[in-house]
């Protein structure tokens, strides 16, 4: 669809022009923080939560920071131009909030050594480029436990976006919980090849429900799968933001990303001049991942979930504790060992128990 491409291009172009004119009008005093978003801030999912983080930043620092954002930035060449525009426009700190911004961000970071960059969910670092992510797999594991306890058909569905480590990790975490708490339960995955397309996400949810799935997960950014689950009378687990009000009779819990604390910490570090590139992984313990559990969940199951959450928080349990085998039966993480962050960041396989083939 060339036409579609050219409008998104036009839109980002228009946004970038708007941005640079806004820049020239301000004094150099406050720290300038830019955000690059993959979706609209009104997606009520992934980008919405990043925008909440930006709001928290404004609340914390007031006029000590000056922030702006560009939304709907496609991954690829457009992203590079937007990020470069921010760097050129005198921004001190840029948050690039989607996996596909990794290479553009790394490239621009090299060219602008004085600007600090942080990239969400990626794995490339540099002197002025850090990475950060929310360990949503912890939430997925707990969600997997809830699904294991609530499913009757022993079929759990997953509306997935793209086969990247972040997504595979989360799918695997659910399957591990299913194996442990309701052996023989299988996760069915449908890839929609988009982060945000409510219609398609709903279609995928319907296709899964038609095939007998009775608990639905999603790794896309709109509440459409939740809504579909509610309409069809099955359970669901929300993602990125708290989606309970889209499915009061469906949502068992939502894996909520809370980015505010990290954005505040990084910005403070840049202001103080002691920012260092790091690979920040925030989870349940740090409050970067939150899990509001619904009253739909029976009390005994809920307390079981709370025990798992507590054990993840105090470090006594890690969802990826060996032995973990891939689909071919090869040992990926040996017995007794816990997956390192590097292993998790590069996860490119399905664990044993998932029957579908991984799309290449």
């Amino acid at each position, binding site marked *: 669809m060339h*036409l579609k491409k050219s409008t998104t291009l036009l*839109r980002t172009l228009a946004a970038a022009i708007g941005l640079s004119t806004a820049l020239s009008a301000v004094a150099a005093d406050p720290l300038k923080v830019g955000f690059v978003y993959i979706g609209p801030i*009104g997606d009520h999912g992934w980008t919405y939560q990043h925008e909440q983080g930006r709001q928290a930043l404004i609340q914390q620092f007031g006029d000590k920071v000056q922030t702006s954002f560009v939304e709907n930035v496609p991954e690829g060449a457009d992203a590079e131009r937007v990020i470069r525009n921010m760097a050129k426009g005198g921004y001190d700190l840029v948050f690039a909030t989607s996996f596909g911004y990794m290479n553009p961000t790394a490239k621009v970071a090299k060219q602008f050594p004085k600007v600090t960059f942080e990239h969400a969910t990626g794995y490339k670092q540099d002197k002025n480029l850090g990475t950060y992510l929310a360990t949503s797999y912890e939430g997925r594991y707990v969600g997997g436990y809830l699904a294991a306890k609530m499913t009757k058909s022993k079929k759990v569905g997953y509306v997935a976006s793209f086969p990247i480590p972040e997504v595979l990790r989360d799918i695997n975490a659910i399957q591990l919980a299913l194996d442990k708490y309701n052996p023989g339960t299988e996760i*069915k995955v449908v890839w929609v090849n*988009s982060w945000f397309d409510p219609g398609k996400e*709903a279609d*995928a949810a319907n296709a899964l429900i*038609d095939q007998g799935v009775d608990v639905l997960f999603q790794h896309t950014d709109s509440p459409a799968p939740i809504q579909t689950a509610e309409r069809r009378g099955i359970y669901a687990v929300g993602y990125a933001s708290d989606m309970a009000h889209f499915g009061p009779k469906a949502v068992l819990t939502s894996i909520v990303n809370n980015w505010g604390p990290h954005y505040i910490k990084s910005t403070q570090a840049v202001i103080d001049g002691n920012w260092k590139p790091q690979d920040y992984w925030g989870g349940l313990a740090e409050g970067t991942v939150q899990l509001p559990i619904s009253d739909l969940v029976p009390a005994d199951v809920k307390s079981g979930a709370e025990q798992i959450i507590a054990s993840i928080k105090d470090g006594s349990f890690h969802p990826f504790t060996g032995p973990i085998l891939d689909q071919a039966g090869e040992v990926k993480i040996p017995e007794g060992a816990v997956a390192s962050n590097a292993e998790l960041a590069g996860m490119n396989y399905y664990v044993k128990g998932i029957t*579908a083939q991984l799309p290449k």
Partner: protein
Amino acid sequence: MDLDLLGNILYAMVRCGTPLLLVALGELVCEKSGVLNLGQEGMMLFGAVVGFIAAFVTGSLWLGVLMACLAGMLLASLFAVVALGCQANQVATGLALTIFGVGLSAFVGSAWVGKPLSGFEALAIPLLADLPIIGHMLFNQDLLVYLSFALFLLVAWVLLKSRAGLILQAVGENPDAASAMGLPVLRVRTLAVLFGGAMAGLAGAYLSLAYTPMWAENMTAGRGWIALALVVFASWRVLRVLLGAYLFGLASILHLVAQGIGVSFPANLLAMLPYVATILVLVVLSRNALKTRLYAPVSLGQPWKAGR
């Protein structure tokens, strides 16, 4: 494949194809009159957000639908003023309208993001809905889908059988000749553009009130553009527009269902499938170039002014 699954696939195909069908029918009428309006995506989004807000505030889904159509017509009338009244370049005006509509809908809708709404529910037609395979597909849909069937028949009848259809085509083929015959060229074109706007608004309402009853920015996700392409690939024939819309819906659904069953495709190929399948079929149907030219409106996209 069992019959239940087939029934479900066909049912989903119609639902998925409906927004495309609505927009494409509107654009078909518009292009038949010789006007190319690339603003479909913007009009759809504006219709979606206005329809959602109206339905949310008043609690009446039908009022939402009506307001969505009016919202689409409002943007279309802007297009008519600039492109028809001032004879501006239609491509540029249409593109501007889309960009405007995307931004405007996001602005208007910002307070309505994340609000849940119970939208149109399926309404089974007694007896007919129990027919094997096609019963679920054709007679167990929501009211807006039934409305799309009726609108298809109406547009087909107007274009193929009615005097109004002949006037529309005369204006699109040769506005000078039509004008010389005493036909009100600009009025016909304006009405066609407004009809296109209403249909795009209706398609938007279908998304925000029936398909996924909510408002989310940019929720059309390019469907307006796909519908525009459908009109061209259907070589401006109304039956093929229907075929193309449902074909696209079918291919979109099929790859989702296939994955659930466990068939694995390369991810990118999969995303291409609906586009490739639709384009291939329609191109094969239109391989007779001469015939295709016969159906293409000759004066498409050219500004026209009386007494030039």
